[in-house]
C-alpha cells in the first residue's frame, strides 16, 4: 500500500511540475516580453532604448527562458510570486487573505454538500426506477445545468429582494475574521452547494447501484445480514469509490463555482482577485492563482486516492 501511495505521490508532483511549465509558458508565448507587459503606457512612452535594455537586465529578462523559468519556480516554491504591475504590491500579500476566505467557502460547501449528496444518492439508488430516484436524477441534471451566475442571482432575487432575509451583497471585508465572513455567506454557500450536490449525487448513485449488484452484497444478504447493515457496512464504503475516483473533477468544479459566486455576491475571495487581475492584465497574479488552484486540485485528488486505497483492497496492489 505504501508503495502504491508513493507512486501516486510522485505522479502528483509530476503533474504539479507540468502545470508550472504551462503557467510559465502561457505568459512566455505572449506578444512582447514581461517588461512591456509590466509597464503602463505612460511609463513606456518616457523610456529610451537604453532604459529598456537596462530594465531588462535588472529584471533578468536578458537571461534565456529556461533560466528565468527556474528562477520563477524557485521563488514560487518559497511563496514569492513577484509584484503587481499597478501599485507594485507583493502578489503573495494580495492573495493571502482572499485565499483564506475562498478556502473557507470551499470547506463549508464541501462539508454541507458531501453528506447531503451521499444521503440523496443512496436513497436514489435504493429506490431506483421509482419516484425518489426520478426526483433525484432529474434534480441533479437541473442542478448542474443551471449556471451558478443564474441560480445565484435567482437566490438574491428570492431571498434578498422579494423576501429580504439575507443581504444581496456581502458586507464583510477581506480581513474580517472567518465567523463574520461565514455569517454573511449563506446565499453564496447555498448556490455552490446546489451544483456540488448535483455533481456528486449521480456518482454516488451509480456507485451504490454497482455495489448493491455485487457478489459481496449478495453474499451478505444470503448470510442474513440486516438491510441496514448491508447498506452501511457493505455497500456504502464501495459506493463512494466512483465519486472519490473523480475527486479532481469535483474539486475543479467546486473551485469554478466559488470563483463565480464570489463575483455574484461580492465575496472577498480569490475568485474576485482573479477576475480583477485578468481585467487589468496582472499576469503574476493570474499565474499565482492558477498555480494555487492546481496544487489544491492535485492535493485533494491525492487524498482521495489514499481514501480509495483504504476502502478498496483491490486498489492497494495496483
Amino acid at each position, binding site marked *: 500500500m505504501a508503495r502504491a501511495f508513493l507512486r501516486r505521490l510522485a505522479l502528483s508532483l509530476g503533474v504539479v511540475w*507540468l502545470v508550472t511549465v504551462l503557467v510559465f509558458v502561457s505568459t512566455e508565448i505572449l506578444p512582447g516580453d514581461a517588461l512591456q507587459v509590466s509597464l503602463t503606457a505612460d511609463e513606456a512612452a518616457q523610456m529610451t532604448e537604453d532604459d529598456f535594455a537596462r530594465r531588462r537586465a535588472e529584471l533578468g529578462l536578458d537571461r534565456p527562458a529556461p533560466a528565468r523559468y527556474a528562477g520563477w519556480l524557485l521563488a514560487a516554491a518559497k511563496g514569492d510570486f513577484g509584484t503587481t504591475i499597478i501599485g507594485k504590491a507583493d502578489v503573495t500579500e494580495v492573495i493571502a487573505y482572499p485565499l483564506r476566505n475562498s478556502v473557507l467557502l470551499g470547506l463549508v460547501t464541501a462539508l454541507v454538500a458531501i453528506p447531503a449528496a451521499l444521503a440523496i444518492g443512496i436513497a436514489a439508488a435504493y429506490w431506483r426506477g421509482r419516484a425518489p430516484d426520478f426526483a433525484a436524477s432529474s434534480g441533479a441534471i437541473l442542478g448542474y445545468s443551471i449556471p451558478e451566475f443564474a441560480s445565484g442571482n435567482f437566490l438574491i432575487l428570492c431571498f434578498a429582494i422579494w423576501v429580504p432575509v439575507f443581504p444581496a451583497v456581502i458586507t464583510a471585508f477581506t480581513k474580517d475574521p472567518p465567523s463574520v465572513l461565514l455569517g454573511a455567506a449563506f446565499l453564496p454557500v447555498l448556490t455552490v452547494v446546489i451544483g456540488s450536490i448535483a455533481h456528486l449525487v449521480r456518482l454516488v448513485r451509480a456507485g451504490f447501484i454497482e455495489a448493491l449488484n455485487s457478489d459481496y452484497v449478495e453474499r451478505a444478504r444470503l448470510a442474513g445480514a440486516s438491510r441496514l447493515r448491508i447498506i452501511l457496512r457493505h455497500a456504502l464504503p464501495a459506493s463512494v469509490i466512483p465519486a472519490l475516483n473523480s475527486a479532481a473533477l469535483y474539486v475543479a468544479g467546486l473551485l469554478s463555482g466559488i470563483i463565480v459566486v464570489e463575483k455574484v455576491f461580492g465575496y472577498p475571495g480569490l475568485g474576485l482577485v482573479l477576475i480583477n487581475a485578468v481585467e487589468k492584465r496582472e499576469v503574476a497574479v493570474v499565474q499565482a492563482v492558477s498555480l494555487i488552484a492546481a496544487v489544491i486540485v492535485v492535493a485533494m485528488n491525492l487524498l482521495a486516492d489514499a481514501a480509495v486505497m483504504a476502502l478498496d483492497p483491490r486498489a492497494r496492489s495496483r
Partner: protein
Amino acid sequence: MRIDPFALRKPAALLGLALVAIHLVLALFSPWIAPFDPTELVGGRVDPPGGEFLLGTDALGRDYLSRLLHGGRMALFVTFTGVVAAVTAGSLAGIAAAWFGGTLDDVLMRLCDVKLALPGILFVSLFITGFGESFGVLVTLIGLVYFPGVIRIVRAQALTQVNLGYVKAAQLRGESAFSIIAREILPNTLDVVYVEFAIRMSHAVLLLSTMSYLGLGLSPPTPDWGLMVSEGVGQLAFAPWLVLFPAVFISTLVIGLNFGAEALAGALGLDASRGHVGGT
C-alpha cells in the same frame, strides 16, 4: 451506430431533444424571427414586458426579445466550432494513443492529468490575460480545454478494439497506421464520440456563458445571455426580468443538451454518467 428508438421515447429524452431543436432553430433563424435589430436603441430605458416590446427593453433601450433570440448565436457558434475541433482532434489522438501505446500514450495521458488539475475557468483566464478575448482566441481555448478529456474517453473505448480481429486483419493487409486509426478503429468508437460531443457541448456552453458573465468572454455589444445577465444585475431589484429571461434561455439550452446527451447515450447503450460531470 445502432439507435434504440425506444430509449428516445422517454419524456426526459423528448424534452431534451425538443429544447435543443428549439434553440438550434432560434440560433439559426433569429435574424428573421427577431422583431428588431438586437443592437439598435429602439425604445425607452428598461421598458417593462408587454406592449410594443414583447419582453421589454434593456438599460440602453434595446428590444429584449430580439437580444434574447440573438443571444445564443455567437455562443453556440464559438462553442460548436471549438468542440468540433476538440472532439475531432481528441478522437484521433485518443485512438492513436491506444494504437501506438508507449511514449505517445504516456505524453497524452500526462496532458490529461494537467488539464484535470486546472479548472477550465483558470485555463481560459491564464491565456486571455495575455491574448485578449477575441473570437479566435476563445474558439482555440474552448478547443484546448476539452481536447484532453476527449482523448481519455476515446482512448478507453479504442483500447477495447485494438486487439480485435478486424484490426489485426487490416494490419496484415499492410494498411498504414493512419488508415487503421481513421478507417478501421474510428468508425467503431463513433458511438462514444457522439455522446462525448453532446456532453462537451453542454460543458462548453456553460463555460463560455460563465466567462462572458465574468466579463472574460464575449464582449459587448454582442447579444449574449451571460453578458445580458451581468448587464441586468444592476436593475435586479426593479427589473428582475432583465436577469430572469437570459437565465432561463441559457438554462434551458444546457438542460436540453444534458437530457439530450443522456438520451443519446441511452439509445446507444452507453452510460453517460461516468467521469464527465463538472464542465466549467
